[in-house]
């Protein structure tokens, strides 16, 4: 029973990951991006849980709980930690218009499928077939980093990139030891907290967090 729906579950989770990534490029509102990030965290946790159950490793289920708490709840909550009224008004004016951005996302996804199939081979397993999604997420995260002006939108790109790396890890090798995973998650959480504080400082000092206006270096 489970063996039959296992490939479909993997495909569903991977599809959700890719869809949320593409939507993050499309949507300009910060609040929407954060919600999509939370959805993506949940999808990633679900993916890990499915792999864990299929391979009979209780450790992976634990990891999936960890991912759910950090990436699905913790990080989005930290990012949205501000009055809802003000966050709704934050609209990104990206350096790339939505049509061009979505087209680029398509190209990047195709590229990652080509790269993975040519370099590593897709293999027979359903996880192997989904592996290019991880690379696509990394590339889309990078795209977000270079196309967004605001510091916090860039932070979302960074987190998307991190999710992509995690996806590749789980799909290709069944995850890293739990201790390492725990350390990575805490690391990312710390980075986000620091950058968040940094962004608030920037806002109070310069009145905005548009990074592309910061060009000069000072002592």
């Amino acid at each position, binding site marked *: 029973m489970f063996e039959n729906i296992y490939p479909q579950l993997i495909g569903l989770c991977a599809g959700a990951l890719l869809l949320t990534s593409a939507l993050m490029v499309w949507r300009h509102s910060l609040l929407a991006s954060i919600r999509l990030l939370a959805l993506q965290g949940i999808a990633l946790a679900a993916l890990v849980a499915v792999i864990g159950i299929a391979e009979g490793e209780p450790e992976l289920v634990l990891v999936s709980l960890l991912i759910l708490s950090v990436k699905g709840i913790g990080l989005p909550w930290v990012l949205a930690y501000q009055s809802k009224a003000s966050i709704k008004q934050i609209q990104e004016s990206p350096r790339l218009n939505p049509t061009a951005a979505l087209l680029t996302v398509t190209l990047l996804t195709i590229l990652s499928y080509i*790269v993975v199939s040519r*370099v590593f081979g897709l293999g027979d397993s359903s996880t192997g077939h989904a592996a290019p999604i991880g690379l696509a997420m990394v590339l889309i995260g990078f795209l977000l980093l270079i196309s967004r002006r605001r510091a916090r939108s860039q932070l979302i790109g960074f987190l998307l990139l991190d999710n992509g790396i995690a996806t590749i890890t789980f799909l290709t090798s069944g995850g890293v030891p739990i201790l390492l995973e725990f350390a990575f998650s805490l690391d990312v959480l710390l980075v986000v907290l620091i950058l968040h504080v940094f962004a608030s400082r920037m806002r109070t000092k310069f009145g905005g967090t548009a990074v592309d206006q910061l060009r000069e270096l000072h002592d």
Partner: protein
Amino acid sequence: MSGIGAGLLLQLGLGALAVLTALTAAPSLRSRAVGTLCTLIAVTGFLTGLGAMLGATGGLRIFIVLPIDPLLLAPDRLGGLFMLIVSGVGVLVSLYSMSSTRGPDASRTAWVAMPMFLVGMQLVPAATDSVSFLLALEIMTLGSTVLLLADHAGRATVASAGIWYSAMSQLSFFFILAGFAVLAAASGGTSFTNLQAIEPVPANVAFVLLLLGFGGKAELVPLHVWVPRVLPEAPSHVSAAMSGAMVKIGVYGGLLVSVRLLPDGPAWWGIAIMVVGGASALYGILQASVSSDLKVLLAYSTTENMGLVFLALGASMLLRGYDAQAAADAALVAALLLAVSHAAFKSTLFLGAGAIIHATGERNLDRLGGLGARMPVTAAAFGIASLGAAAIPITSGFVAEWMLLQSLIHGGRLDGAVVSVAASVAMPLAVAVIALTAGLALLTFVKAYGIAFLARPRSAEAAEAHEVPPLMRLSLVLGALFVLALGLLPGPIAALVAHSVSANPSAAVQSVGLGGVSLPGIGAVLDPIMLVVLSVPVAIPVIVSIIVSARRYPHRTVALPWGGGGSRARPRMQYTATSYAEPLVRVFDDVLKPSRDVQVTHVAESRYLVERVRVEQRVSDVFETRLYRPVLTLFQRYGIVVRHIANGSIHRYLSYSFVALLIVLIVVSL
């Protein structure tokens, strides 16, 4: 753990303790406390080096996770000798700095850097693999850079010197790193024992790279341009450590390459080193002889001395290639003795210059004078060290140059037959270079001592000079005693030094008579004490006749016939450093390219009457203006173009890495 290992560990421990003390001690105690610890570091290094030089083995292994040969600090005899030289200078400098430092030179940062500098310098000769060698070298460079920059806020020239120093020391480091990398790639290891025995092509490439690198560390032409900026601007005790000890690391590197790593090179290696050394010696002493800034003079003189060391090293390599083993060993021992004696006299000279600056605040010779009567101890120490620098008998410099000349004169022939055309051309030329260098060195140090310490003060500051504190005097006297000891007892010292490079030391150098030195392979003997004893019978009649004539014709005061009782010579009528060197500037006009500026101000009423004449003469460094400036201008021009690529926008930088990632992905999937 062996004694050597314990000594190395103790140096590291004391270094860490000194850094901690520098960070935490109260400003009033800092110089004394950290200076004492630095002295202890240097003494430990001295004893460790002595042990290693006498043949004790053992070492300190540093555990790392990288998959390379283990990092092992275990000085051999040669390493022990250089550890001894470096830490000997370290003792003098540490003692001196305890009471000489003040203001920014005594800041917390400077005192943190001092133990780093000393420990780094002492560990370089102990390294037995390229990684720990480079590591210690970088610690040394970092420490010295920080020490140099101590007073960067007070003087703009210090900041400029710091930039030159950083750039040039990193250039040298790059060459050394590249040279070791070539050797490691060709031999498949990083330990010095693995780096030997490789194919000719990588050996040639590595030799040139390492020569450039160590030549830069040893201040050889044309990589010497940092010297006349850095050594004068650094605090004097740091200049003494840099010139007395740090440049010896360059010499050690040269010996490491030519004796240990690549011992059987082709003849052109020796000739190349001789050419570079000879050019450095001539150019260095020429610049020194016309300089009127005391510390610039000493800095250029360092280039000269290191040039002589490399000349001796090159001659030894050339002679060894032709199987003239005795002469080759003598030249190599001469190179080591030159290095040892230079460490002794140059650190004393720089410390003496520091004492002059301490007392008068001046380092321009044209504004000094008459310090002999006001600072007798400094004057005596500086005088003895000047004798050493000018290679006058009974000092250390003489013995070393004598030995070098002996090996060059006798080296071209083996059992009466000429060994090769190259050697029979190179050796006489080298003798000529040394002769000219020695003559100019004599002139230079007569000027340095005479203008600074004799005659009348040329400025108010010089007239009000006072002797320096006891600890500074102590280190000056110790340095001067070293210079004399090395000159009076060359035999035992040369025999000891020969052990570190020669397989059969007693065939190369022997100690004879009262501490005299003998070169059995060449058949030359020098016994300074015996010479002194023999000269006494000659001197006694002269002294007696002087005393007798002084009694017979008592001293008369001669006044100017039309002087109205005024004095004949005012301070301004004396020779100055500039006027003393003026004939030299004329003779070597084509090499030195001096620029002169004469401004005559006339009296307002009549243009036939002169109110004042102002003469300014600048001698710039030819290598800097002709070689470095064009390159720097070129870099600057391209730098402005390149600035558009890196305009400070974070998005642009991120785009670069994104595009690079995409390109890599596309390339690997093709």
